[in-house]
């Protein structure tokens, strides 16, 4: 269980993936590669992503749940895939914003 808040950073414990929380607050069962994620820089990486959670993460993509309770941004890519509890997070196809600068 990790504590979500916008700006909080988490790392996978089984692959190179790192994410930053864009949306969502409170405790959450955030996993990557089937293993709980940890605060960035707080954990050593060991083991491998489990077979059913190894579709990988893509740099710069946003991942969220169906109910839009959380959104994380991948700041480092890795072979594990993200989930909230048992539910895989999916890439959010965001409507591109009109650039303002």
């Amino acid at each position, binding site marked *: 269980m990790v504590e979500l808040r916008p*700006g909080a*950073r988490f790392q996978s414990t089984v692959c190179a993936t790192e994410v*930053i929380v*864009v949306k969502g607050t409170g405790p959450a069962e955030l996993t990557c590669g089937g293993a709980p994620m940890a605060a960035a820089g707080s954990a050593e990486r060991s083991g491998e992503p489990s077979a059913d959670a190894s579709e990988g993460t893509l*740099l*710069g993509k946003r991942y969220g749940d169906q109910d839009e309770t959380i959104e994380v941004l991948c700041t480092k890519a890795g072979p594990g895939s993200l989930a909230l509890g048992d539910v895989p997070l999916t890439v959010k196809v965001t409507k591109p*914003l*009109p650039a*303002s*600068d």
Partner: protein
Amino acid sequence: MNLMMLLEMAVTAMGERVAVGPLDRGLSCDRLVGDAAALAGRLRASKAEHLVLCDEPGAVLPVSLFGAAWAGVPYVPINYRLADDDLRRLAERAAPALAVVNPSGAERLAGVDGLEIVERDALGEDPAGGAQPADLSDWPMDPDAAAVLLYTSGTSGPPKTALLRHRHLVSYVFGTVEFASAGPDEAHIMAVPPYHIASVAAQLSQVYSGRRIVPLPKFDPDSWIDLVQAQGVTHAMLVPTMLARIVDALDRRGEALESVRFVSYGGGKSHRAVVERALELFPTAGFSHAYGLTETSSTVCVMGPDDHRRWAASDDPDERARLSSTGRPLAGVEVSVRREDGTDAEPGTAGEIWVRGEQVAGEYAEGGSQLDADGWFCTRDSGHTDEAGYLWIHGRNDDLIIRGGENMSPGEIEDVLLTHPAVVDAAAFGVPSREWGEEVAVCIVARSPAPAVDDLCELVRTRLRSSRVPARVEFVDELPYNDTGKLLRRELRQRFAADPSGG
């Protein structure tokens, strides 16, 4: 959360792309990282607590911005157009500091205590200056560290130092820019001066999206048009006075700019006639009108290209009027318009504009955080929204005209005057009145033949109400703007107060 996260992501995915400069000899993202690392090493080896930038737009900007972030010191761009004494005073405030300067800046800042001066060209040749470059993974991660200090323009008071922390700027970028979303042919012309928040936001947004920056060191409309054509520029950000001058120059040259896909404008009052003409002269471009403040990490409201097209084509006058709005809040930003007693104003009713969101810094180096207990920041701008949430800016609250206890927004009066076909530009402001406390005065820049004063007064009377009818109307050749396009009503007020007989 640190600006370096943005650069690290960009270099991982797009290291070979040209980040800034011409396609054939610009600085690649890899080189930008190398130079920023070298500058960071130099900063760390020095006693500098700030990086002062005193230069025009150029490749030196992102090197300095990211180099400072890497070393953990704030980036402090200062206005090279200031008088020598003022410029030196700003540099003194930032000392001990490393100052990256243009050639004249080196002379003008020479001898400031605690200031180590490096000329832009010397920095380009040897950014490390003999120091050991910093390692890529070695940068501070404190989201609360100060990233950028900006001296606000002070149109309605003495300048203040706005303090933006890493988390504010990074939240802005994460909230508004899709990573690596730019096509390899896209290029952004950077003409706003470095000491404007739009320059900071533009650097971060382009690097993160992978769009090449084409800097224009000194703005004039013809150089701007020439550079757009020579470099195949696709994206532009302009303050309204720049846009107005470009539109005039394109008309004079009989040209339209077809490479441009996207124009955003903001940072001051824009005129509908200019925008409507610009839509024709940039036939393939989408337009965005942005509203934001230094203290809010730039844009908080935006009217995008779809809105522009839709409202420009509408026959409904209320919908068409949205062309002069600033659109709606960005995702993640809340806007509230409040009456003087603090309650929410109804749509259509003017009030003070408050904003809240992760990107809202609302802090000054001198006075600390100005956010209220719930995180809201008072912009000191007045405005109103409509039923659909579109926001109109009326002007600075300090510019409000208070006539017989009634608050009037100068912007509202100016908007009406500008609908007259012979009015090119207009400024409304308060002048002392024995009877009313203040009365409305207006300065008009008009086409020839000039409109009759009675016609202008009648226009205000019928469109607004009689209390807003100007007591004085003066025709002038031009209105005072500062160099980033903000109308200086305060100057007009002072000029008229000093000379009660006329301008």
